[in-house]
């Protein structure tokens, strides 16, 4: 039949499972390396990579943080800017609440380990994101819900080698190439990331699909001290095939704010503060 059916096809192109996106949203430093426990299974991973990861991990483990960020989304059809408050504990817990614009104020996302809930204030509804919607866009941005939860799995899912070490444009860097392990439940064919040696800040990450075509690029910019730490204050995610982008800018960050797991509850998800 030809009766019109209207669907959701205008949604952002589904983004893919990837790593450390939460990191970019709520945990800037761990963006460097997601994960934490040096994975014993990572037989193919370069031991030096594990060393770097371990070093950052020690720095970040168990950290709590809070802050404010602005997310600017530019798409073919609309542009929108959101200001949000963020709380996080390690890489497993985070709570993000929209403060403005008024239309969306109170909209919130809670991430606890591998699960994500959204709170819709006007309807007063809490929605647990089902597996089928994990690849859907998060708040209309170029991030997916999956990006929120996959960040700690990088070492488990990929073999990581140092594919370049040395000078790039006058900066000493490492370049990691990550290829998925044979049975890993991921859809990227390859991820490349550049990290500068002097302060271990990530500079960019390229995501390739299974055919080896560049799918999206994440760029880290504006390194500055926030809450007493050096962070990339500006993160840009850009799909390769569209003239669109999402920019996340940290406005404020504080570390060691003494949050514990209890803070990351469904009750707090709904609370307007």
């Amino acid at each position: 039949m030809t009766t019109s059916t209207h669907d959701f096809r205008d949604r952002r192109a589904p983004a893919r499972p990837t790593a450390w996106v939460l990191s970019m949203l709520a945990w800037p430093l761990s963006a460097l390396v997601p994960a934490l426990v040096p994975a014993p299974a990572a037989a193919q991973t370069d031991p030096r990579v594990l060393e770097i990861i371990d070093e950052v991990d020690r720095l970040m483990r168990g950290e709590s943080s809070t802050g404010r960020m602005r997310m600017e989304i530019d798409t073919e059809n609309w542009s929108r800017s959101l200001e949000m408050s963020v709380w996080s504990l390690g890489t497993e817990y985070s709570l993000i609440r929209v403060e403005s614009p008024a239309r969306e104020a109170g909209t919130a996302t809670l991430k606890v380990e591998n699960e994500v809930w959204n709170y819709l204030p006007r309807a007063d509804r809490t929605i647990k994101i089902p597996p089928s919607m994990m690849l859907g866009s998060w708040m209309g941005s170029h991030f997916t819900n999956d990006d929120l939860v996959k960040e700690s799995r990088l070492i488990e899912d990929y073999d990581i080698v140092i594919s370049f070490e040395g000078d790039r444009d006058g900066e000493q860097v490492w370049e990691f190439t990550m290829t998925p392990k044979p049975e890993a439940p991921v859809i990227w064919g390859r991820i490349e990331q550049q990290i500068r040696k002097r302060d271990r800040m990530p500079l960019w990450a390229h995501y390739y699909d299974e055919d080896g075509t560049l799918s999206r690029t994440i760029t880290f910019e504006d390194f500055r001290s926030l809450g007493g730490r050096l962070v990339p204050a500006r993160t840009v995610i850009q799909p390769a095939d569209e003239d669109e982008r999402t920019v996340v800018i940290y406005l404020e960050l504080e570390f060691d704010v003494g949050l514990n797991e209890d803070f990351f509850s469904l009750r707090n998800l709904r609370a307007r503060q």
Partner: protein
Amino acid sequence: MSRGNHRIWWRIAWRNLWRNRRRTVFTASALSFGFVASVLMIGYMDGIVEELVSNGTRVATGQVRIQAEDYQPELSIHRTMGGREGLDVDALLAAVEAQDGVTGAAPRLYGGGLVSSGDETVGAVLMGVDAAREEAVSRFGSALVAGRMPGPGEIVLGDAMAETVEAEVGDEVVLVAPAADGSTGNDLFSVSGIFSVGVGAYDDSYALLEMGSLAELMAMAPGRIHEVAVSVERIREPDIPANAIREAVAAVSPGLSTEAWSGFLDQLYFIVNYVATFNYVVAVLIFGMAAFGVANAMLIATFERRREFAVARSLGTSGGRIGRIVIYEGILLGLFSLAAGMALAVPLMVYIHNNPIDLSRFVDTYSFVGSAVRPLLTVEYSVWGPFVSALALVTTGVVSALLPAWRAVRIPPADVLANR
């Protein structure tokens, strides 16, 4: 040949016809019944077509629809009429309604979303409407089984959807829908009514909201709509008003696409044309069979009158004239049968039209190509059906007379009179 002379051949033919009254009545009956059968069959098929077109276009789509050129086939919520700025909806509606044959025009905003009540959630097509204008275009208003059309903050659900989410009039439902600014529109709506149009696609997946409420949910500026659905007087011939509308709306806003249902319900259009063609096949089949019977009877009648024709020929009547008498007999037989058939068919049609035979005990309503047909044995009045049948009938009379006429012309007078 003078006019008076001419008439005499018709009279001879008419009298010849009634020399064997019983045979003529039987022969004429074959043709009359053929006519009745043909008219009723075509009327019945027309009835189905009428119902298909009516259900296919009167339920929701209207017979003509206007959308942004790039709205189809993706139905993106961003592809509103007049582009991102929208257009002057009132001016557009006025331009459409000023066209001949247009009976109504209704603006619509479409979105997709989730409707939840309690623990149940279903995906829905959200349709923002102007309730007063929908009356002239769609059946949603007249198909309400409870409550009324939606006002601000209200929603009307199809009955199947209402059942799925266990919602009744007065209940609150939650709507979550992707909005045009990339946010997730969400709000509570009160169920003001439940409709049942009888076409599954609508009853289980359409929800109607007041235009402004849906625009707010979807963060759409006023003046942004996806469609204007237009109803026209002659639903089977939407192309003429569609062309006029196309020209009229081009003056209001560029980039609009105006399409008649023959385009956007192309499968239905195919079926309708198919049935129309099939009507000819029916007529040809029925009268084809009758033709052989009639020809046979007339051959016998001609054979019986061999001597008579031979005498006429001997007295100076030309062969052509003899043949013409037989042809006239065929024409007169046809006209007589037609009169008898009409006398039978017209009351029958009126009766069945007014008293459709309900077959719902045996068959369910079935939906296809976006429409539906009720199990009613009914006939639709038409001029075309009887006209085609009448033409077929008289043609049959004439064609059936051709061979006998040829035989009559070829009679050798001397041999026949000499009984050789």
